[in-house]
């Protein structure tokens, strides 16, 4: 009995802590009518469902660095327009075009990304 109880209790105790935030965003949170450009350096890429996340360090007007989370579409749609999971690496300079969150959070919905070599990729995968 103990054998089952302990893992079960551990699982129950862990549940509130591990409950995921809704990290899957519809585009209604973003100002899709007014897309903007941002230049930055990638710090991390998460090749995850349902959205691919690129974390981008962007210098603001005062010269201080802010981290933005840039969300592309899902891996299945992005691979259809040529993306590869290892296409963007930490340290890569990127130019992104996208829609920022309406509420002012440093989160952007990606429309397109241009790599340092000039190659441009659709960030939605259905244009």
């Amino acid at each position, binding site marked *: 009995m103990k054998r089952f109880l302990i893992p079960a209790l551990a699982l129950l105790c862990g549940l509130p802590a591990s409950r*995921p*935030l*809704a*990290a*899957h*965003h*519809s*585009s*209604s*949170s*973003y100002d899709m009518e007014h897309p903007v450009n941002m230049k930055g350096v990638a710090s991390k890429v*998460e090749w*995850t*469902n*349902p*959205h691919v*996340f690129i974390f981008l360090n962007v210098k603001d007007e005062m010269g201080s660095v802010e981290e933005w989370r840039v969300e592309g*579409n*899902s891996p*299945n*749609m992005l*691979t*259809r327009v040529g993306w590869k999971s290892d296409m963007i690496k930490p340290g890569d300079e990127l130019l992104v075009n996208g829609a920022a*969150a*309406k*509420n002012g*959070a440093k*989160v952007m919905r990606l429309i397109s990304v241009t790599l340092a070599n000039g190659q441009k990729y659709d960030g*939605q*995968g*259905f244009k």
Partner: protein
Amino acid sequence: MIGTKRKGGSGFALRRRPVSFLFVAALALPLILLAQNPPHPNPVKQRGLVMAPDFSGVWFIDEYRRNLLPKEDPPFQPWALQKFKALQEEKIHQDPDDGPDPTERCIPPGIPREMGQPFPFEIVQARDRVIMIFEYQSLIRQIFTDGRGHPQDLEPTYMGNAIGHYEGDTLVIDTVGFNDKTWLDPMGLPHSDQLHVVERLRRVDHDTLVDEYTIDDPKAYTKPWTAQKVFKLKPDWQIKEYVCAENNNVK
């Protein structure tokens, strides 16, 4: 040693047995299948099947848009209009990590929203049903075309219960049995558990499929209203994996 030899001997026999067994099985298979699936008793239906329009293939929304009705409002019941307006207000201030859209928590989008998501779906036509395999959330929709009606004791579901029949070049799909936990479109048009969706699916040319909807939901709308979605054939695409449950939390 003897035991080893025996094992080896039986191993040899085992290697041969499947070959001969497969040979016999291959000869017998058509007979077995014939016995299990006798010719269709209804020749009219069978003839109808031959004449059924071909919708098979991978299809993708032609122009993704967030409004099911781009130009006007549907005929809301007062509570539905109030709910819809409040939602649009809420969206302006929403935290992108905690929005009101049910699909953000991997809740199925329901019908008709699933059809218009910016992800492909494949149509497979079987003898007694049309199967839609949706990439978005890896959902499957079965539309029974064998003449059955909706079950009497339907429990509410996200995708509803769908039956269909062919009218010439059109597949008419009748879906009921919905819960009220989904939106009709990404903007958040509400509906009730009385939602009844009738679709007329027609292949207007080789590469184009048109789905005309009638939304009939007397609890949420004062009268039935119609909308349309257009899909394009994607001959080089196949349905890929989409794991909503990962929810950007697996590192």
